[in-house]
């Protein structure tokens, strides 16, 4: 065998079983989806710039909110984390590749087809999905546009991709660690992904079941979700959120792993409470299965259900708090510098905590009667997803890009990108707390006059944030094409096996396992 390089031409990408190539494809794909989902968001924000309908009709507006959510969740955030897992997990545990490389190729290559199909619905008669990313029945069944069948098929393919990806990650982590790499020595990114993969395997089939029942209702005369036929529209919500709530943690647990790698490096101090971080992650994963109905406090559950889901949800604050305290204590009495990955990681801790606080407020069922389905909720989940998931992915790109391509990014440009994103994001999403509390429902294309000012501010922030990401694209391309040569360590004594290989990482790494002390 020996060390051979990649094949040439397009075939390299089509047939590749190399974890680095597949990781790269996942990351570029997710970035493309991020920009597309971003354009959808900007259509929303442009329409909401002032009261009245100016740019789009309500039907199209609803398609935009739906597609924005679907594309960002399934197309941008999830594949980005799978891409990072592909690149990093084998290098972090001293494995030569993923355990199931051919399946790895397949789990990536079905994704572009799923999203091509999903996006094509926008051009179909009746338009694309217009029932929100949560696609509550019967709006998504009896009352859905004909394209809903394509949406269902696309979701099935995305689910298959995620399940295959998770099986691969679990098989890799459990079987291919270098000798001496015990579970409790694994980097936290590996740990959080291991737990995330189990969450995915547990809930993606539930999502598949959910959309299959929709399919049956629409085409085969069943009435799972139709009250007129003896079915139950509330059942839909229970099934959906049994998938949906763990899904939220699927999008944040790997982020915890990334931040737990970056903060110690730039604080020059080992991560505080490694073991408790692992246990906290596992606790969050467990709790994620028993809190789903907090998305449904206004659905009219019996009070016992209401109380159970309120208490269980509040409990999540405990392990999440442990994580935040651990990160802050890692910084405490460190020797800190503030390169771009660290800036993103610090912003993550602060802004994710703010999203956590509003999450705690939302957990209080009586107060949720006022918050539910308002912009307060929109503000909350964007605070955990944008500076949470998205910022952690950007932090990861700046942190590991020199290892991937061998060049350092331009620190000044990176910092400029950080500050533009940071300001843009807060200007966009902070005012949403205010309009939400003042009574603006979510998913409306037009609003009462008193909400005009904060919406205008939010729209301006959104365009700033959006264009900053084009700048990010420029920085990444510039780094790949040239720049200062990165050392093998890249940073000052970072921890982890990935820093022991050359920069850029050779096409094949750890063909013989490293010795882990």
């Amino acid at each position: 065998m020996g060390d051979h390089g990649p094949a040439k031409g397009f075939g390299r990408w089509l047939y590749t079983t190399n974890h680095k190539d597949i990781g790269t494809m996942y990351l570029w794909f997710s970035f493309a989806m991020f920009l597309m989902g971003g354009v959808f968001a900007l259509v929303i924000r442009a329409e909401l710039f002032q009261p009245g309908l100016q740019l789009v009709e309500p039907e199209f507006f609803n398609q935009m909110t739906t597609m924005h959510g679907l594309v960002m969740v399934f197309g941008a955030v999830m594949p980005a984390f799978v891409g990072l897992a592909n690149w990093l997990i084998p290098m972090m545990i001293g494995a030569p590749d993923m355990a199931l490389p051919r399946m790895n190729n397949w789990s990536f290559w079905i994704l572009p087809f799923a999203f091509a199909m999903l996006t094509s619905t926008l051009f179909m008669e009746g338009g694309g999905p217009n029932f929100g990313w949560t696609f509550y029945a019967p709006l998504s069944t009896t009352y859905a546009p004909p394209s809903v069948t394509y949406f269902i098929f696309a979701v099935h393919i995305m689910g298959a991709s995620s399940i295959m990806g998770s099986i691969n990650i679990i098989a890799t982590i459990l079987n291919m660690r270098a000798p001496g790499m015990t579970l409790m020595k694994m980097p936290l990114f590996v740990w959080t992904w291991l737990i995330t993969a189990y969450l995915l395997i547990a809930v993606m089939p539930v999502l598949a079941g959910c959309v299959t029942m929709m399919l049956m209702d629409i085409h085969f005369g069943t009435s799972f979700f139709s009250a007129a036929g003896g079915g139950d529209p509330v059942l839909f919500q229970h099934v959906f959120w049994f998938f949906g709530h763990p899904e939220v943690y699927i999008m944040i647990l790997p982020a915890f792993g990334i931040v737990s790698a970056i903060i110690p490096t730039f604080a020059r101090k080992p991560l505080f409470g490694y073991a408790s971080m692992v246990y906290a992650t596992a606790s969050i994963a467990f709790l994620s299965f028993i809190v789903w109905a907090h998305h449904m406090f206004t659905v009219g559950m019996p009070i016992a259900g209401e109380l159970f889901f309120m208490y269980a949800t509040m409990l999540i604050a405990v392990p999440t708090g442990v994580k935040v305290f651990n990160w802050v204590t890692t910084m405490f009495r460190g020797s800190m510098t503030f390169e771009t990955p660290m800036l993103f990681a610090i912003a993550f801790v602060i802004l994710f905590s703010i999203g956590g606080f509003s999450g705690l407020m939302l957990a209080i069922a009586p107060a949720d009667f006022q918050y539910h389905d308002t912009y307060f909720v929109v503000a909350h989940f964007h605070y955990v997803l944008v500076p949470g998931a998205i910022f952690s992915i950007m932090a990861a790109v700046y942190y590991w890009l020199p290892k991937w391509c061998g060049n350092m990014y331009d620190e000044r440009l990176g910092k400029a990108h950080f500050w533009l994103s940071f300001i843009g994001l807060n200007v966009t999403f902070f005012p949403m707390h205010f309009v939400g509390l003042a009574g603006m429902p979510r998913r409306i294309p037009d609003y009462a006059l008193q909400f005009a000012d904060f919406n205008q501010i939010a729209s301006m922030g959104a365009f700033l944030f959006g264009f900053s990401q084009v700048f990010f694209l420029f920085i990444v391309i510039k780094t790949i094409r040239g720049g200062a040569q990165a050392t093998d360590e890249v940073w000052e004594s970072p921890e982890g096996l990935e820093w022991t290989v050359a920069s850029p990482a050779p096409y094949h790494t750890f063909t013989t396992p490293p010795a882990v002390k």
Partner: protein
Amino acid sequence: MRLITTQLARKGLLVLSRVAALPALLATSAATWAAPGDAVVDEAQRWVLNMTEGVTAVSREIFDLHMLIFWICVAIAVVVFGVMFWSMLMHRKSAGAKAASFHESTMVEIAWTVLPFMILVLMAIPATSSLIKIYDTSEADIDIKIVGYQWKWQYEYLGEDVSFFSNLTTSQDEIYGRAPRGEHYLLEVDEPLVIPINKKVRFLITANDVLHAWWVPALAVKRDAIPGYINDAWTIVEEPGIYRGQCAELCGKAHGFMPIVVHAMEEQDYSDWLVEKKKEALEIAKMNELVLPLDEMYARGEEVYLQSCAACHGVDGKGGVGPSMVGTAITTGPMQGHVDVLVNGVQGSAMQAFGNQLSELDLAAVVTYERNAWGNNMGDMVQAVDVLNYKKNQ
């Protein structure tokens, strides 16, 4: 506790509103970008930062709960972010900080697991007691059934024979910027829900087609309206006044255009109103016996069409979400089929059954209008009594 949190809330809001005044100044110019002639929103309303305290005991309790949790979160944030910023300031490498090497402490970890847990218990106690209160829908003085339709609300006063629909009155011209927007843009209806003050009013909430949610912030009532379910909620309003809300669950195209207006009035005024409404109902029944000439039916039909049909089928009948009505098999086919579609709707489509939503006279008028408008020119017509007979015989 309530007093303290409310005071804290007021002080905090004062500070917040001062901070908010800065962007307010910057944005006054921006606000003029709204179409000229639009109603000017009160300065205090433009920059509302917080939840309303509302006008019921429950809404105030929820507000206090909200503020209590908010200030606990603020306190935690000050401590955590305080330590963080202090570290970032004092423990910088550029300031010569040398990194310590400690990385665990079981005692500390136990402490910051147990302490937050105790804080959560403190939060859960008032939350539980409020929830129990909100769930006690027993012993109501008045029962009102609320049905969500795409895209309007129906209110039925149980046991009183009073029932009506509540539609948005904001004009398409205002929405599309062809006319100045009024003060209650998108929050105004033709017939508000009328309730007496100081009486326990129970709402029985359901839906006819898709999910909706009935929400009035000042009452702190939000309940999903679900086909096949009847959810209940209650309120005792203390202040007479007009309280506005919106549908809170995505229900399709006009989800943003089905507001809720509650008019709470003194008990005597309410009884007078109820008597008046019952009289109206009788008059409508009488109207159904009328036989009207084509031009009157056409004019009435146009009004009904714009109110109930135009949202889907377009002002010009050329369709939109719903199909076009110009020269189709229904509008230019047999009369019976046309009446059937209106009365019974079309199964499995968004076309609702209007049989119980509109009076027989209005059904007859709109059928007549559709058969004669937009060049359909059928020249035929149908009377209220015909519709009534059709309904009886089917």
